[in-house]
Each structure stands twice: as structure tokens, then as C-alpha cells.
């Protein structure tokens, strides 16, 4: 079994402990040993990586990904793009995630039914590069809900599945399960940039109940929801929707419910979309004034306060989303960690734990992913610097010296810099 020994590294294991000098042995696809003293682990490894004091830690998790979003300025393009081009774009974006140190990704929706599933499967076969991935299907919306862009006089082209009533919901969920998705996405609330607003909750309870019932009939499948409004967050708790996206306008009652059920839910606010729409979308016609009139400044303020409250209450909040729009382009994912520290008041350690330790939990593999610990899967990144001192470090790809997924290097250190790689004879 091939082995790799990382030596001369600062181990940031995501338990909350400060980084410590040590060595890590990877055997096959797992971490075989973590040592606090150099020389404790035999150096008779197949490959020795001298980290030169760099930080070794778990790969990162993005809890709300859209491989099939193509850095577009609106929503029409992802509905209109032909599937042949679209699968290549999605595959390229999957690789970009891994290039940025993200070894875990939770699909928050795909623009076409099979895009995510095919990319996931080809990653798992080793045919294309990408993170461990939970594939999703298109968002499911009601008539007039978020994503229903179809003009009444034109045939359907939109990127979501539009359903009406529990019967159609059941059929839709079954179609997506047939394709092999890991997650089902429901648009419970709207979005300020559309006609269906953030605090609207157009999906009916019998439709939600049917979706949850049908999805949970298949082992391992979970539900996630676009849920900005307070009402939609409460519906998520009521119906056991595990992953709650946004939750910007969660009120005290919603927070109480989440706190009482904190072990059952994950929240990913997707702050990048709201923040960048406020401040970085002027080149696409959304000036600060336009964003303010749309309601995004109000939502940003609400989202910040809501997430601060969730942090205080111990509710699991994870970074990620909505990257893949023109003003939240692919490759800038690690901005979220900066937002968590700068906007939400997380410490750098808490932000990192949200992206690693909690990443393993949301991926459904809490004992295998997200920590640097014996027995865990070897999804590791080597950073030139200490992210606890500078959370922006992750945004500079040149500072990610090595990326390992499942015990194999996706990116290897290029000597000499401060380290060297040697291969045992």
C-alpha cells in the first residue's frame, strides 16, 4: 500500500487545538498516524514531503455549490445552455473547486437533471478531477415560485422543475431519484432579484410533505431548501429538511426551533451572493442603489444578525454559496471564510472548523472527513502560512502548496521553495 509521510509541518487538525509541529503518515487513502514529535514515525515511506513548516490541514467544504452555474449574470443562461457544453463547464468548475483546496462539496442544485450526477460519477471513477460531491438535481419550485422563468406563451426552458401539487411533486422527486441524486432541493421561499420575493413562501405544506416523504424513501437521500423567509425556516424544521440555505430572515421562533433541533440541521447562509450583489455587481447593472431598492442591503443586514445569533446558539453554520454567478465567480470560494470572520464575528478557528469539521458532518461522514486524525480519509491541503493569522490565505492559490484527496495528490509541491519531495527507492 503506498504511503506518504508529511514531515516538518504545522498540523491544524480542526479539533480546536492550536496548530502543533508534527508529522502525518498517510497509508493508502487514510491517515495512518499523526505524531507530535519528529522521528516518531518511520521515514521508510514511499514518498516524503518536507512541508518546511507549512500548515497541514483537512481539505475544505463548500456547503452550497453549483457546478453548473457558469459565471452568468442572470438565470436564463443556465436554462438555455445546451447540455453538451454544459457538462463540460460543470466538469471544469468541479476541478476548480479542487484546485482551490475544496475536497468536499454539497450540491445545492444543478441546472439540468443529470449534470451533477454525471460529474459526481466521473469524479468517483477517477475520470475527471473534482471534490467528493453530493449531487443534486434541479431546484423544485411551484408555479410562480423562485426559478419559474417560463413566460406563459413560451415552452419551458427554465433551469428548475416547476410542479403544482403533491402529485406532481411526487413524480418529480421520483424522476430525480431515478437519475441518482443524493439531494433534493426545494425552493421554499423566493429571491429579491426575482418576482417571487425573499420573504414569500409559495410552496404549500402538502407539497413539502410529499417531497420529504418520497425522498426519504430512498436510503441516504436528504433534502435541502432555499429558505430565506422565517416561515420557510420553520417549515424546514417541521418537515425535517436537513440542510437549510440562507435563512436570512429567521425570526426568534425560527431560531428557537433550530436551536432545539440543532443536531438535525445545517445552515449555510450563502453570504457571498447577498454581499456581492450589494457591493460588486455594478458592472452588470446592479449598482448599490439598485441593490438597495431590490432589498439586498436590508437582507444583508438581517442575514448577518441572524447568523451571529445562530453562532451564539450553537446552530451549525457552514460557509459556501452562491458561487458561479458573474459577481461571485468560480474560484473565489474562500471569500466565505473571510466573510465569516469579518461579517459574522467567527474566530478564524471557528471559520475553519465550519469548513472542515462541520464539512465532514454535512457530507454524512463525521468520523471520516474533516479532521486530521488517525483513521480519517486523507483529504489534506498544505498551506504556505498560518490561516489562523490570516484567513484570506486560502484565496491565493499559489499559497496552497499541495492538495491530496483520498490519499492521492491532486497538486504536488514543486520544490525547492521551502520544501522538498523525495521518493523512497
Amino acid at each position, binding site marked *: 500500500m503506498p504511503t506518504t509521510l508529511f514531515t516538518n509541518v504545522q498540523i491544524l487538525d480542526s479539533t480546536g487545538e492550536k496548530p502543533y509541529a508534527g508529522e502525518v503518515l498517510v497509508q493508502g487513502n487514510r491517515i495512518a498516524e499523526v505524531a507530535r514529535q519528529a522521528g516518531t514515525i518511520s521515514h521508510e515511506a514511499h514518498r516524503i514531503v518536507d512541508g518546511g513548516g507549512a500548515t497541514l490541514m483537512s481539505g475544505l467544504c463548500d456547503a452550497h455549490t453549483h457546478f453548473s452555474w457558469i459565471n452568468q449574470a442572470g438565470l436564463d443562461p443556465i436554462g438555455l445552455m445546451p447540455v453538451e457544453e454544459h457538462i463540460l463547464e460543470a466538469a471544469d468548475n468541479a476541478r476548480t473547486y479542487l484546485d*482551490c483546496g475544496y475536497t468536499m462539496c454539497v450540491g445545492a442544485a444543478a441546472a439540468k437533471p443529470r449534470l451533477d450526477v454525471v460529474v459526481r460519477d466521473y469524479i468517483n471513477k477517477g475520470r475527471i478531477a473534482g471534490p467528493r460531491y453530493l449531487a443534486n438535481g434541479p431546484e423544485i419550485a411551484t408555479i410562480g415560485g423562485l426559478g419559474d422563468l417560463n413566460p406563459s406563451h413560451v415552452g419551458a426552458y427554465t433551469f428548475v422543475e416547476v410542479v403544482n401539487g403533491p402529485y406532481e411533486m411526487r413524480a418529480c422527486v421520483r424522476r430525480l431519484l431515478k437519475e441518482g441524486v443524493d439531494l433534493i432541493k426545494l425552493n421554499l421561499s423566493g429571491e429579491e432579484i426575482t418576482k417571487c420575493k425573499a420573504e414569500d413562501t409559495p410552496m404549500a405544506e402538502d407539497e413539502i410533505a410529499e417531497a420529504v416523504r418520497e425522498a426519504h424513501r430512498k436510503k441516504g437521500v436528504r433534502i435541502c431548501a432555499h429558505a430565506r423567509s422565517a416561515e420557510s425556516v420553520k417549515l424546514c424544521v417541521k418537515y425535517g429538511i436537513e440542510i437549510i440555505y440562507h435563512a436570512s430572515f429567521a425570526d426568534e421562533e425560527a431560531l428557537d426551533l433550530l436551536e432545539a433541533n440543532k443536531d438535525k440541521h445545517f445552515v449555510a447562509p450563502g453570504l457571498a451572493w447577498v454581499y*456581492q450583489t450589494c*457591493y*460588486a*455587481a*455594478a*458592472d452588470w447593472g446592479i449598482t448599490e442603489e439598485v441593490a438597495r431598492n431590490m432589498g439586498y442591503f436590508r437582507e444583508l*443586514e438581517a442575514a*448577518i444578525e441572524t447568523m*451571529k445569533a445562530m453562532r451564539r446558539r450553537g446552530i451549525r453554520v457552514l460557509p459556501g454559496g452562491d458561487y458561479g454567478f*458573474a*459577481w*461571485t*465567480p*468560480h*474560484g*473565489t470560494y474562500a471569500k466565505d471564510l473571510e466573510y465569516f470572520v*469579518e*461579517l459574522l*464575528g467567527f474566530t*478564524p478557528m471557528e471559520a475553519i472548523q465550519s469548513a472542515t469539521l462541520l464539512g465532514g458532518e454535512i457530507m454524512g461522514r463525521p468520523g471520516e472527513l474533516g479532521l486530521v486524525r488517525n483513521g480519517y480519509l486523507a483529504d489534506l491541503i498544505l498551506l504556505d502560512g498560518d490561516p489562523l*493569522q*490570516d484567513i*484570506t490565505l486560502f*484565496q*491565493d*492559490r*499559489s499559497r496552497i502548496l499541495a492538495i491530496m484527496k483520498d490519499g492521492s495528490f491532486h497538486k504536488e509541491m514543486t520544490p525547492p521553495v521551502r520544501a522538498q519531495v523525495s521518493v523512497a527507492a
Partner: protein
Amino acid sequence: MDAPPVPVRHILAVCRTCHRYAARGADEPTPGERLADRLEALIAGTGLAERLTLRRVECLSGCRYPCNVSLSAFGKTRLRFNGVGLEQAEPLVLLARRYLDSTRGEVGGDAGPLGLEARIASAVPPPAATN
């Protein structure tokens, strides 16, 4: 606002993918990378090097007006500049010094004499203080 980390880290972020839409050879550095190299060379070996971190980031959302650079620090206004070329590198470094010495990033008035005022694409205030 929550207490800033000590010491306050100042970041000069340079978009490495500018110009995103221009054709170039496979191994040819982008204009953004060249700009980052130039800024890095101007900062190295000066007193600024210990106080200012240069970050080569993927994108600063100013693709239509390359190249893009931003100055930021916890508790200060985040400034983004677009249309930045190599000839703006030295004025940017001068402005960065003033930014470091400012209380909350209030250097807009200094940008004009340095020829940078017209290139300020956005000025994002720091998050409001918590109650």
C-alpha cells in the same frame, strides 16, 4: 464591531485572472499576474512589506475593466480599483502607505493627486458595530 485581530492585517489583493476575456498564450502570464509581480517588487524590502500582504486572488468582480486591485483591512473601508495598469503600480503603493496609516481607510482625497481617483470602482464601508 467585534474586536479586530491584533495586529490588523492589511491586504492588497490583485486579480490574477484579469484580463479574463483577452486571448493569450498558454504559459503567458496574465496582465493581472504581471501587475502583481510589479507590486510585489515595489513592496519587497521596504517597511511596507511587514505591514501589507499581497494576495493574488481569482477575481475581484471587475472583469469588464481590468486590471483590478483592492485594499482592505478589518475595520476599514474596502477600496477596489479598476482599469489598473503597470503605470499605476507606484501610485498604488504610495496610496497603500496612506491607507495603512489611516484610521478607517479614508484615503479618497489622496487618490486624486495620485491619478487613482477615477479608478476607484467601489468603496465598501466596514461592517457596522454590533450592539
